[in-house]
């Protein structure tokens, strides 16, 4: 895994409709918060990694130029990494690689998006090829919903049971977001609200779907030596995994989902985790859709294939359950896409260092973070722990 690497600081904006700030100022808000959290200044940073969604999202190309100063990159090396929804995990991995290789001591990683400025679903549709798939894309919900339907068919999950479990996930994420001052959507919803919300792509309804958010996140990675010197409680990188799969949606098995399964398996191997349900204390899963969150539970080995709805209905993943998932309210309640996967990692780091405030899972020592991107195509996982 290279040299030991730890997260020594994280910063997030208030996510939501942030028409009160221009894009560079939004980025700087997260960077400033991360530097303050780590107790260091820009002078201590050796390199910067950033990532966003495609340029169509905000209509400004190559945004690393637009907010070069805001992310503190004047006079420093810069890397941009972009993998759609999984960007946040990709840039986290890149920050890790840079420090673990011994080529830098401290690296600042920044993810951001300002979705209120453009058309999120139209931008997502341009991710599909123009000849075959774009005509049928219907934004992100079309594909994610077809995947969920395929999963329910495969494992013979009755429609009502899937509906009930997905509604529970919506309610619990909304409840959790009430504890998170950064969250975009901070409103409680009831089971009835979810089940009666308007249909987006059948059977997915409005409250099964994430919002389009503005927001940024910054995470600072340091060598073990620096981390011990600077930081009272670092979050250690225990393992990471990333996998891609085919672009054409019909060519791979999305009910089993190799890329999600193998990304987690790789991270578990590195972290020495054999029974994730028992060993992990908390998970921050990229869950823009309630139904899809259940597929991730299965891919990550939290429960047997086809049984995620049963585990959801018995409360396994609630804040006080066996493995709390998304105590932050998750992607379902805040989704500034280029930042989202990094927010998952920042939240995991906050959990294992006891800094998660009202959303803290008591005594959390080992946490999983995750993001997914493209046409159900890329998955990245990072495991952090309170001990190296």
């Amino acid at each position, binding site marked *: 895994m290279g040299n030991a690497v730890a997260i020594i600081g994280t910063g997030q904006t208030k996510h939501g409709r942030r028409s009160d700030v221009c894009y560079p100022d939004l980025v700087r808000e997260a960077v400033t918060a991360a530097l303050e959290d780590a107790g260091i200044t820009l002078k201590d940073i050796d390199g910067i990694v950033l990532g966003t969604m495609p340029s169509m999202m905000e209509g400004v190309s190559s945004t690393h130029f637009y907010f070069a100063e805001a992310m503190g990159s004047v006079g420093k090396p810069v890397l941009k990494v972009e993998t759609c929804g999984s960007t946040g995990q990709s840039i986290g991995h890149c920050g890790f690689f840079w420090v673990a290789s011994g080529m830098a001591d401290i690296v600042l990683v920044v993810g951001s998006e300002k979705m209120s400025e453009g058309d999120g679903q139209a931008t997502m549709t341009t991710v599909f090829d123009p000849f075959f798939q774009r005509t049928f894309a*219907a934004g992100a919900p079309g594909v994610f919903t077809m995947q969920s*339907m*395929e999963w329910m068919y495969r494992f013979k999950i009755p429609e009502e049971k899937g509906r009930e479990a997905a509604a529970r996930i919506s309610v619990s994420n909304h409840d959790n977001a009430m504890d998170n001052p950064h969250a975009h959507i901070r409103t409680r919803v009831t089971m009835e609200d979810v089940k009666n919300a308007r249909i987006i792509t059948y059977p997915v309804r409005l409250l099964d779907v994430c919002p389009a958010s503005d927001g940024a996140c910054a995470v600072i990675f340091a060598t073990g030596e620096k981390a011990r010197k600077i930081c009272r409680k670092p979050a250690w990188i225990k393992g990471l995994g990333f996998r891609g799969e085919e672009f054409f949606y019909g060519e791979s098995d999305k009910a089993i989902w190799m890329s999600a399964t193998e990304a987690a398996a790789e991270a578990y191997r590195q972290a020495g985790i054999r029974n994730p349900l028992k060993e992990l204390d908390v998970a921050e899963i990229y869950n823009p859709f309630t139904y899809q969150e259940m597929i991730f539970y299965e891919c990550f080995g939290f429960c047997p294939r086809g049984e995620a709805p049963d585990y959801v209905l018995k409360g396994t993943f609630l804040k006080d359950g066996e493995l709390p998932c998304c105590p932050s309210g998750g992607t379902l309640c805040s989704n500034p896409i280029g930042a989202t996967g990094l927010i998952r990692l920042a939240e995991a780091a906050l959990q294992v260092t006891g800094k998660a405030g009202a959303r803290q899972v008591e005594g959390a020592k080992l946490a999983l973070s995750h993001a997914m991107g493209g046409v159900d195509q890329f998955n990245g996982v990072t495991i952090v722990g309170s001990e190296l």
Partner: protein
Amino acid sequence: MAKEYRTMRNDVTLPYQWALGKTWSRFFDGLKDGRIQGTKCAGCGRVYVPARSFCPVCFTDTTQWVDVKPEGKILTWTLVREKYLGQVQEPPYVVALIQLDGSDCGFSHFIGGFDLSDAGQLKRKLKTGAKVKAVWSPVRNADIRDITCFVPVE
């Protein structure tokens, strides 16, 4: 956020001319003639539709062309109710992944030919494994809409 700050409206419109290359040109020439063609991998034997120039699993060139039937079974589907910029159909409409007979993957297209407002009928007709067949467009432009949609086979 009591004060409302300024925003500025501007649209970015850019023209593109995308190259289809040898394999996809031949695929769309076939559609124009009412044929759906795939390519078969000599290594793993999978038949890909749309045709591919190489097998994504074996990473070898796929040179053998095969005709597949303009009918197959539904793998999964959804009813799109929401409007998005750039949609070519007015919602509600059904998109599906269809495994064409003689192929080993899913093919994305519309499903139509019946009343979508009746939820009961929708679920009866669109079960996974249900048979569907292509309806060809009377006007062909060598693009994916040379097939209008797929309709259930009773």
